[in-house]
């Protein structure tokens, strides 16, 4: 098992060392660290490919419910288009509401995916290996759901193509002054790049699935087509790595710019509560924060229900939890700035908003205190302890809590801020209605449905990255200590 004892057997067949203390250390490493716990060939493949071949009744029920959610989404949208968007809760002056909240939220949760798959890769953070694909998928699926909302919230969704710069008889471009058009450019870039990046990362595993599938049939055909003939030759791997590097370094600025641009939907407006220059970085950090929590939640779910305990171990949970904790501090800093500076400026409308958050009326104050609990109190209270950081239950709780808290944060920014402006006669409130609940549920069901769908065909863990990691990690003995070493 140890480096200097390398023999001719494959790593998984090598015996443990004789000396008890050394053996103990080696065993501990193998148990704790995925990248040191090499098993026989096909072990990992079997785990990740099993969902593609078997399904439990529970899964089918879940699939059905998620599908039902999609149908509800479509039906409600149709109802809205036919009946007029008055069926949901917006009014003058609160002209944007839950749909835009969903838009920002779903884009936001995708940022952690990109951060994990790209930025962590650039920084060579090792615990990223098994979790990068679920994270990337969250990005892609989240963006898909997010991309629906600019269409759903429109008064005339069927004319949304006006935003696309295509040659037309009126010879009009869309207005590039408008942050909404920047959104369109940014999100379409982000979605297409993330999708390509995810596919690129999927390629070797598709080849694995193809090679593993020996029976002819639709699965073989599917994997043959999608794996694009990837053979795993050295040149192919080299090109693959170069392509991954290009994407890694290109998609990081895209990620930062996307949520900055989304934040400019608000920061560029003169609405009190929005008109703040800190929105750019604040939203990016908020996105990472909510995304990290969403990724944690997804990981805990797939770990339990797809039996991926081999892949997702306490080191990964600890790593993600610490990432989340750091982000919560950063987010708190930006949030504080967002409130301190306007309060200092004593703009009357901003003061009213602050007052509403602190003292009411309902729901502003209740939501605000809930936000502080969910985003600050719970993470800070639960994640300082390593034992809790590596407990799936605690992580699930914190994951849900931060997601709820960040959702509330956007609800406060959009629906509460819009209710206050410089003309008190024209303030108003937002009243949540059934269509928003149905469509929001439908959007969440869409993401879940896509995850279900994906897991029925393709491996949800990037096995090739784990294998690559396992290849690069070795245990060495230095004196009496056994250390984990890595090839750069």
């Amino acid at each position, binding site marked *: 098992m140890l480096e200097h004892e390398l023999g001719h057997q494959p790593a998984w067949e090598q015996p443990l060392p004789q000396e008890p203390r050394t053996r103990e250390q080696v065993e501990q490493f193998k148990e704790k660290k995925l990248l040191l716990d090499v098993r026989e060939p096909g072990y990992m493949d079997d785990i990740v490919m099993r969902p593609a071949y078997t399904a439990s009744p529970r899964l089918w029920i879940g699939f059905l419910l998620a599908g039902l959610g999609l149908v509800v989404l479509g039906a409600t949208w149709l109802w809205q288009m036919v009946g*007029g968007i008055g069926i949901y809760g917006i009014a003058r002056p609160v002209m944007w509401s839950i749909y835009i909240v969903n838009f920002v939220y779903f884009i936001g949760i995708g940022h952690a995916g990109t951060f994990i798959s790209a930025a962590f890769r650039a920084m060579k953070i090792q615990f990223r290996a098994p979790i990068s694909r679920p994270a990337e998928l969250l990005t892609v699926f989240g963006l898909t759901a997010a991309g629906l909302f600019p269409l759903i919230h429109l008064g005339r969704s*069927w004319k949304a193509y006006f935003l696309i710069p295509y040659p037309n008889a009126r010879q009009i471009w869309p207005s590039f002054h408008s942050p909404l058009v920047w959104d369109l450019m940014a999100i379409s870039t982000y979605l297409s790049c993330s999708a390509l990046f995810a596919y690129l990362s999927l390629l070797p595993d598709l080849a694995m699935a193809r090679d593993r599938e020996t029976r002819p049939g639709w699965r073989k055909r599917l994997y043959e087509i999608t794996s694009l003939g990837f053979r795993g030759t050295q040149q192919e791997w080299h090109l693959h790595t170069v392509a991954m590097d290009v994407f890694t370094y290109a998609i990081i600025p895209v990620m930062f710019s996307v949520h900055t641009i989304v934040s400019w939907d608000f920061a560029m407006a003169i609405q009190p509560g929005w008109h703040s220059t800190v929105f750019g970085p604040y939203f990016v950090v908020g996105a990472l924060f909510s995304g990290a929590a969403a990724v944690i939640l997804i990981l805990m779910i797939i770990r339990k229900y797809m039996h991926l305990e081999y892949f997702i171990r306490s080191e990964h949970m600890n790593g993600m939890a610490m990432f989340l904790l750091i982000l919560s501090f950063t987010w708190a800093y930006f949030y504080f700035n967002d409130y301190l500076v306007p309060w200092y400026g004593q703009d*009357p409308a901003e*003061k*009213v908003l602050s007052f509403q958050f602190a003292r009411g*009326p309902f729901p502003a104050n209740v939501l605000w205190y809930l936000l502080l609990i969910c985003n600050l109190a719970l993470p800070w209270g639960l994640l300082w302890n390593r034992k809790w950081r590596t407990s799936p239950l605690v992580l699930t709780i914190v994951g849900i809590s931060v997601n709820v808290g960040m959702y509330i944060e956007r609800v406060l920014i959009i629906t509460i801020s819009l209710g206050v402006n410089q003309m*008190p*006669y*024209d*303030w108003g409130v937002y009243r949540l209605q059934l269509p928003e609940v149905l469509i929001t549920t439908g959007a969440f069901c869409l993401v879940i449905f896509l995850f279900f769908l994906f897991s029925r065909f393709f491996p949800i863990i990037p096995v090739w990255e784990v294998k690559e990691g396992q290849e690069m990690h070795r245990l060495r003995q230095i004196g009496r200590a056994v250390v984990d070493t890595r090839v750069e």
Partner: protein
Amino acid sequence: MARSISRRSFLKAGAAVAATSVLAGCQPGLRRWVTLEPYVVAPEEQPDGIPTWYASVCRGCPAGCGIMARVMNGRAVKIEGNPEHPLNAGKLCANGQAGLQILYNPDRLDAPLLTAKRGSREFARLPWDSALSTLAAKVKDAGSAVAIVLGPTTSGHLVDLFQRLAKALGAPAPLVFDARSSWSGTAALSAANQALWGQGALSAYDLGGSDVIYSFGADFLGAGLSPTRYGIEYGRFRSQPKGARGYLVQFEPHMSITAAKADQWVPIAPGTEGLVAQAIARIIADEGLGTSDRIARAAALAGEINLASAAQAAGVDVQQLRQLAQVFAEAQRPLAIPGNGQSGAAGVTAAQALNAIAGGAGMALQGNPPAPALVRAEPAGYGQVQHLIGQMGSGAVKALLTYGTNLAYELPAQAGFLDALDKVGFVATFSPFMDEMGANSDMVLAERTYLESWGYAVVAPDFGVAAVTSQQPVVQPLNDARSAGDVLLAMAKQIPSAAGAFTWSDEVAFLREVAGGLPAGAAGGTGADAQWARFLQHGGWWPASAPASQPTPPPSASAPISVAAPQYQGDATIYPFHLHVFASPLLGISGANLPWLQGSPDPLTSMCWQTWVAINPATARKLGVQKSDVVRVTTPYGELEAPVYAYPAVRPDTIAVPLGQGHTDLGRYAQGRGASPLALLGGDAGPDGEPAWATVRCQVTPTGRSVNMATFEWTPGVEQGFFNQGYPGE
């Protein structure tokens, strides 16, 4: 690889294309527009896209403003004020602008209706011939036991025709009455002028030229006599030369828009307007304020009064009364505007007396219509209505005809009109709509709206403008309704005693004859045809130059004016609050079936579509209610339920409820909406013959329910603004 398309797949594709194009055509929002189809052969006066303007009269209130209707392709799309008309000079109020929704109202009647059981609201449609002969037969049978009630906006020629009918039948002269005229106290004003100057004419007020105006409860900018004319005057009042902007004081318990625009709003107790006026006159006399002429007149006119108790009854300081008296007496051209019948005839006289004391420069007594043949609808006092109800109740009225007045709605329930109606043999109503009067009639004769009718209006004498506004149809009549004038003429021919008095072929012939009697006016024209054409084209008749106003004679009152303290109805321990009934500037008393008026915000509360109970916020808190809570308002005479609006500009001891809602009929926009405070008033007249509008006490009890209030404003934002303050005094 080319593949031939099978017939089945072609049809499938075709069906899909057709389906999508049908779906595309069914885009939401493409419903119920008017399809603009130009005429194949357009009438000469209606070229496509070019409007034709027709001058006519507005019938929203009795003032008689001149309007012009913009007609495109035979449809009236906009009403503007007639710029040539001396009363409104091109301006028009909200009610006037909303007239198009009377013309195009979906609930218009289009045929005469007859019911077998009065009040059942089950009517059978009749052809006009049948209706006319039935009506003629009933009227003939009734003979001299016919009672006729008209509304104050009735065209002069119709008043004339009804008067002639009554005379020919030997029946009493028609009565002119509606809630608005009653509430405006027009009758009380004539009586006041009779007492002060021996002339029972109405007086006109020159607001624009006054420097100080004291308005004793007259909401002249709102739903009073003419928001248009008084609005114009108010604009002049605030823009006097050298930056002078006039000083307006409004005395009333609840802030109307007139009080909102006043420089000083004096929140007096309801019904004490007269007391305050008399107190001011007394102070001028006692303290020798102003010129010696004014002091002398004040001494002669102001009766004895205990200032302290008058001030207490009104709820003001004596010191404030002194200050007010001084300002009035020392002003150059002060003007007092008496209010409506709120405080009864004596109160109106006391306010008019202040004008007499001031020297009468700001007001002028008005004369008669410019031509003897022209008739004005002079509103009667409430006393005459009570007499009529008495006659009806005793069975002395065999047939009742009503036109333009929704008596079954506009009288207090306690007046006993509906009960008395049971004893009337036959009831017929002329109306474009099924209103409460129609619902309680035997026959409803579908009347044309004013924009489809002929007539004239002698401009109300309240404004000092000598003019007659012409009325002509601006569009082809929309349906089979007929104008009352033609109905009367046709009906009269079937009544032997009346046939001789009605020789004209139709009402236009009648109108031409009447208009021919006008002297030469500003429009000029020689010959009957030219004069008639000009009369229609310019929108009426007015003199080429405004006649010199007659100076007001010195007052010749026989006795000093003395106003008694108001007698409030209801035990103060059971009914602790005063009730103040008012009309919102938009809805007025009769605007409930017009969506533009229902759906536009009341200026001071921003309420739409509802009745509200205005309660001072401190009082509301004591009662434990807030905005949107439904309360029950009870008086000794009735009760109503409506939601609360916490209104900071009303006395804490006064509850204000607007008129206008609470209809059981009058169409889809009016029915089943809100409540009418007329249910809370007693039927008896006050000691001076006017209804006791202002002197009813009430109690307010929470019901525990609340409703969603349609306020256009965001009330918490306005209440707190940026400062999170409560109301003063809280």
